[in-house]
């Protein structure tokens, strides 16, 4: 067990996989020098420039090259730097790579990992702060993971690289600097598709992922009126239905905390599925706590307001428990 920052967990996971599997290589813009978040620092020195490949600014070309190399048995880890950049190249992943196994009846598979920084809170403005998980939905070939800690970064990234299908890993830029204990090696690997129960509790199940796991924890710790079972989904696509169902079956209440806008947010799928499958077992309506339906603003106070804060989560859950109804969001009626 070592204490490290999340960005170091990225480096450690990449390094460990590269050491254990010679087919693993990295590709992306300026990854040799470590990138804007220093999340690949030192790897080119260690593995050389045939395994840490700096590319031109050509997302379509190098993402697609990842698909092609993966189909030939390599395990490329392609960095998109900021997840928005895949907007100029999405086709190669969702319409090409994701369908390769299907179309070739298993003759080709695409063990490709796509790393990208995502998320708001750091003042990068509306084109460098989104999560954008919606772009990867509804495409059964692709997994999407969002770590919430150095450990889950390490464990999920190693699993992503080992997966025989494309995996997108969204690295929340607000978490790169966070420190935590990390178990490295095989024991530290976290399977794709498995949630983690962060806290046990009985009043409400809080489903979160990435940054909102921290928000949930802070909310829980800042009050003592209710206890919560916080579930860190870890993998958003496909999400761990059985873990969520088990918890909600126990607590009888479901709250989802999402960093993105209410409309189109992933939490709706959790709520819909839970309510349908646990029909009659919920004590209160499922409730989503999200950001508002707006682009992400730059100014600090506004960006702070944009994100669901722990105080807001507490007040929402208090109201849910008190009234038995799904509370209105802060922006409702505020218009």
């Amino acid at each position, binding site marked *: 067990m070592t204490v490290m920052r999340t960005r170091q967990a990225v480096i450690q996971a990449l390094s460990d996989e590269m050491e254990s599997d010679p087919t693993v*290589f990295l590709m992306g813009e300026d990854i040799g020098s470590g990138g804007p978040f220093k999340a690949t620092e030192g790897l080119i020195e260690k593995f050389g420039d*045939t*395994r840490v*490949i700096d*590319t*031109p600014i*050509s*997302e*379509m*070309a*190098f*993402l*697609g*090259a*990842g*698909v*092609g*190399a*993966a*189909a*030939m*048995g*390599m395990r*490329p880890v392609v960095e998109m730097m900021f997840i928005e950049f895949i907007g*100029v190249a999405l*086709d*190669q992943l969702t*319409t*090409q790579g994701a*369908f*390769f*196994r*299907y*179309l*070739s*009846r*298993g*003759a*080709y*598979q695409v063990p490709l990992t796509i790393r990208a920084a995502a998320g708001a809170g750091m003042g990068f403005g509306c084109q460098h702060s989104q999560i954008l998980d919606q772009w990867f939905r509804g495409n*059964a*070939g692709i997994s999407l993971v969002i770590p919430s800690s150095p450990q889950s970064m390490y464990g999920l990234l190693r699993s992503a690289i080992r*997966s*025989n*299908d494309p995996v997108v890993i969204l690295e929340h830029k607000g978490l790169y600097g966070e420190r935590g204990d990390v178990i490295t090696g095989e024991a530290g690997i976290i399977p794709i598709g498995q949630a983690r129960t962060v806290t046990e509790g009985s009043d409400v199940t809080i489903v979160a992922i990435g940054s909102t796991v921290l928000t949930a924890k802070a909310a829980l710790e800042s009050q003592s009126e209710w206890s919560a079972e916080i579930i860190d989904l870890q993998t958003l696509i496909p999400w761990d239905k059985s873990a969520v169902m088990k918890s909600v079956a126990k607590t009888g209440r479901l709250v989802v905390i999402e960093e993105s806008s209410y409309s189109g947010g992933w939490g709706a799928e959790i709520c819909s599925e839970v309510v349908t499958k646990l029909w009659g077992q919920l004590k209160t309506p499922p409730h989503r706590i999200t950001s508002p339906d707006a682009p992400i603003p730059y100014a600090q106070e506004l960006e702070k307001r944009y994100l669901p804060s722990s105080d807001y989560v507490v007040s929402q859950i208090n109201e849910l428990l008190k009234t038995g109804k799904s509370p209105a969001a802060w922006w409702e009626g505020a218009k």
Partner: protein
Amino acid sequence: MVTSLTRRGQLNTEVGRLERMLEIRAVEESIQTLYNDGHVRGSTHLANGQEAVSVGIASVLRPTDVVTCTYRGHAAALALGVTPEGVLGEICGRVIGCSGGIGGSMHLMDASVGLMPTFAIVGAGLPVAAGVALAAKLKNNDSVALTIFGDGSTNIGAFHETLNMASIFKLPVIFVIENNLYGEYTRINLSTPISDLADRADSYAMRKEIVDGQDVDAIINAIQSAVDFARAGNGPSLIEAKTYRYSGHSRSDPATYRTPGELDEWKKRDPLDIAANKLILKGELSEVDLEKMKSDIADRVAEAIKTVLASDGPELSTLMQHVSAKG
């Protein structure tokens, strides 16, 4: 049974190559009837008039090399070795189709001869081919990747990005433009302000060559040079084959937009005629041989159609198979 691999080997003689071109023509000409009889759905894109390019390419590449091609892929698939049953079966959505009936005309594949599932999105096959070449380079083997696409596709971003990256990385990849003068219903001069598309290689300091797309021997020479160059570690080439498609863009296109007389002009330089005439001139083939060859092929294709039509569609369960590693 004939395998794709043995069929690939049949391209090592001039006669074999002529036969394959004739077969491609015959297979493609059978599709309209199959459609009229309700066996074909969606869209099909014929390559008749362009057979020499595919056969030339397949004659040079090794089966361990990899090809990415577009929705206009019947000729490439047959040339690389896929059987008429494999291609027609796929077009008719039968389980004996080369993609098990799952892909359809736009998604032919055969890993045993290096044909990746063909790409229905313009430009999409180029980055993937670069990745195949990158893998060869990283694995330190001397395989090459080759990607086939049209004139219209040279205006898509992926073309530019991939050529630049392939050049900088010195990747063993060959970019082959089948310049058939049209992208769908639009003549090249209306979409592209230059006429020799190979010149776009200059933007990437890339080796280039323009080649007569109707002459299979010229294609072979051009591809061979590019492949040798790539295998020797010197990097990519851009090859422009000047050719023409006799049919419209896809089944529903009557091609009324053609310049008058253009089609007839091109038919005078039919790639099948050119190849046959060379053999006849050399005395290696008689008119009688040729007619025999054609009728044998017609028989074989008719046989293939029978087999296809007697074969089943894929089982319903295959719908959920190979979706992900889990099943």
